[in-house]
């Protein structure tokens, strides 16, 4: 029966995304024979792997009716912290733990102000976006730090199992965990209920503050993990690492049909949206279209994805009224 309900949603949003995905994939295949090769497909994910890992956490946060603009800065901070500590002679393993700890701390700060003080998350995490980037700049100023141990770089760049690098494995594991937690566990139910109306959740004995705090901690933790992965993949860190990623991340989540007002969205939609964006970028790469034009196309897609259903609805009601008038 629950499947039935979801099918209802699929009819409206996810099928549209699937159709777009189908068109993009067919187009890519006709344009380039390389597209379906395993290394291209792995490559497709790897180039944006850090973003799409954060997308998973961001989806939870937005469904909960909040937003976290600070993720890219937390990511940068985590990468810079590793670089800074490693440069000071601290082993990379401990540096990684410190980076994760810093991410959790960032999450606690945002969570505290949003859940316990009751501030709008847009404002709190905007401050985080600026502030954490500032901390990152304090750590490594205007230098670029690299020369990480060989194994650390290899972790980020080489396949670990088959043709899958570590980051991709992390993504798939996280995806399954988040999907199950969101759609089959009590936690996910609470996330949806609070996203619909946090007061009504409180009146049903749901621990609203705890859930929100948990979500921001998850967001901080995942962002710092992504920071470690990008440091490993790029092999060098600057203060501006991951700058501006938050926009791409939020775009993917919203394109996936998650309501920006909270309370609505599925991980199936988010997954499809990830694939659409990645295939689109990959396809454009194969056609050697530059990054900025790619962003334009994705921006247009984001707006059209909401605009077209709205327009269709308008036309439908106009048409219906005209038909009724004709009948009279």
């Amino acid at each position: 029966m629950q499947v039935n309900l979801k099918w209802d949603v699929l009819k409206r949003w996810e099928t549209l995304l699937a159709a777009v995905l189908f068109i993009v994939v067919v187009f890519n295949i006709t344009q380039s024979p390389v597209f379906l090769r395993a290394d291209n497909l792995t490559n497709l994910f790897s180039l944006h792997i850090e973003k799409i890992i954060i997308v998973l956490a961001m989806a939870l946060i937005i469904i909960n009716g909040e937003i976290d603009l600070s993720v890219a800065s937390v990511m940068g901070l985590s990468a810079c912290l590793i670089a800074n500590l490693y440069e000071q002679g601290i082993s990379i393993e401990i540096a990684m733990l410190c980076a994760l700890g810093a991410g959790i701390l960032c999450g606690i700060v945002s969570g505290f102000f949003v859940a316990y003080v009751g501030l709008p998350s847009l404002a709190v995490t905007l401050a985080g976006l600026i502030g954490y980037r500032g901390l990152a700049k304090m750590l490594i100023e205007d230098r670029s730090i690299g020369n990480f141990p060989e194994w650390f770089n290899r972790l980020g760049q080489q396949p670990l199992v088959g043709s899958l690098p570590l980051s991709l494995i992390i993504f798939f594991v996280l995806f399954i965990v988040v999907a199950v937690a969101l759609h089959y566990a009590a936690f996910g139910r609470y996330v949806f209920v609070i996203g619909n109306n946090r007061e009504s959740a409180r009146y049903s004995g749901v621990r609203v503050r705890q859930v929100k705090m948990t979500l921001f901690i998850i967001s901080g933790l995942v962002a710092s993990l992504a920071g470690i992965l990008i440091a490993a993949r790029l092999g060098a860190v600057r203060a501006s690492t991951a700058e501006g990623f938050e926009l791409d991340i939020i775009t993917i989540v919203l394109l996936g049909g998650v309501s920006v007002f909270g309370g609505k969205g599925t991980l199936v939609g988010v997954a499809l949206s990830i694939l659409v964006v990645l295939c689109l970028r990959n396809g454009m790469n194969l056609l050697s279209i530059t990054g900025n034009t790619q962003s334009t196309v994705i921006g247009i897609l984001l707006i059209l994805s909401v605009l077209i259903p709205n327009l269709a609805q308008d036309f439908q009601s106009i048409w219906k009224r005209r038909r009724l008038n004709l009948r009279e």
Partner: protein
Amino acid sequence: MTSILELRHIGKVFPGVRALDDINIEIRAGEVHALLGENGAGKSTLIKIMTGIYQPDSGEILLAGNPIQIGNAAQAQAHGIAAIYQEPLVFPDLSVAENIFIGHQSSGAIVNWRRMYREAAAIFDQLGVSLDPRSQARGLTLAAQQTVEIAKALSLDARVLIMDEPTASLSAHEVAELFKLTRILRERGVAILFISHRLEEIFEIADRVTVFRDGKHISSRPIAEVHHEQLIRDMVGSNLDEFFVKEVRQKSDLSISVRELSKKGVFSNISFDIFKGEVLGFAGLVGSGRTDVGLALFGIEPADSGIIIWQGESQKIKTPEQALKMGIAYVTEDRRQLGLTLPMSVAANITLATLKNYLNGLGLIRSREETKTATMYRERLSIRTPSIWTETGKLSGGNQQKVMLSKWLNTHPQLLILDEPTRGIDVGAKAEVHRIINDLASRGLAILLISSDMPEVLAMSDRILVMREGRQMGIFNRQDVDQETILKAAMGQAPVRNPA
């Protein structure tokens, strides 16, 4: 009397529903025309057509004999059609005066603040109310907000005023004030369409009454020619007892004891006992602190001092989770905002407060158990829904109320706090809710019933606690009191004036 607004052969179809079917209604100058009907009878749709929010699929609208189109809210206003709602639509950040004039300032010109305040004050004078035009609308009581809306309608020279359940959230005193304003408007020749679920109010204020059922026009008659039973028969299509009276309680054990419960600035020194199987009614004006006592017992807004003795032990209730664990449930008066998650399924709403009981070792929801529980309540309370996986927002008000009730019954409470359990639901559903309350009490549940509906309190309670301005005015046995005694206690020393 001349007809101001006439609707002829109005039809409106939504996907799957014929909301209005060949409706005719005529509203005359200087009359209060009551519109009655169960929820889903088509009243709201009609109002939305009259105020330009919906367009009719067929039929015509005549204003003073001339056919008109009402394409949007602005056009309705231009035609002199205004509406006030149960939840008034004010702008909390603007001043009272701006709230009155915001819709019809001539754009372009500079806002003349002084004139605006003066004119607002003049309107309030006409109405005989005292509101400060300069104060911010944020923080006004519901009744004051409605007064602002009425002033707005006056300033617009409204010829037709639609009042959509304006009294649903008002106290008896505030209703009397509202009726005073309504009569002033009637004397000025305004045609008033008045919607209410409370029959006694309709007999008090209305000149004519129209009944809708299932989107069809059933009857329109002068009020002098109808009586209660006739109207109810028209509404439900058959005879029905208006009120269910609770059975007398057998002797039983104490459930909860409250002594000198206080919260600064909200209520003070509230003391009462509730026995198992007993219904303790909480009467009083809106804002007298009844809901606040309920919220304190449920831990949403904990009390500052006082003793709560629960199952022989003194308890401090700090959070809703704690209250739940103790076996206390609170069914809120605000079903749509606080009571339910409307976009979620009936089943998800029913199990929300008890979700922990439906988890397996991994924290995942056992769907089969959840289905079983939801199906059980669907049958037990006869919730009319296509499926337990239907969006709760798609059900009628009465059925939503039953879903909310199921959620709390499923916590297997020992004390059930019901806050306005029948507000805004139709006569049939109301009787069903009363039957459920009686059934629960007979199974030994202690019930605290907060209600502004005086006949309901009198019919359903064993004893009645009356509150006024945060203080306890007394506890009465049902057999010893009548409506008047309770009203006097609720209004304290205020002189009881004749409404006319």
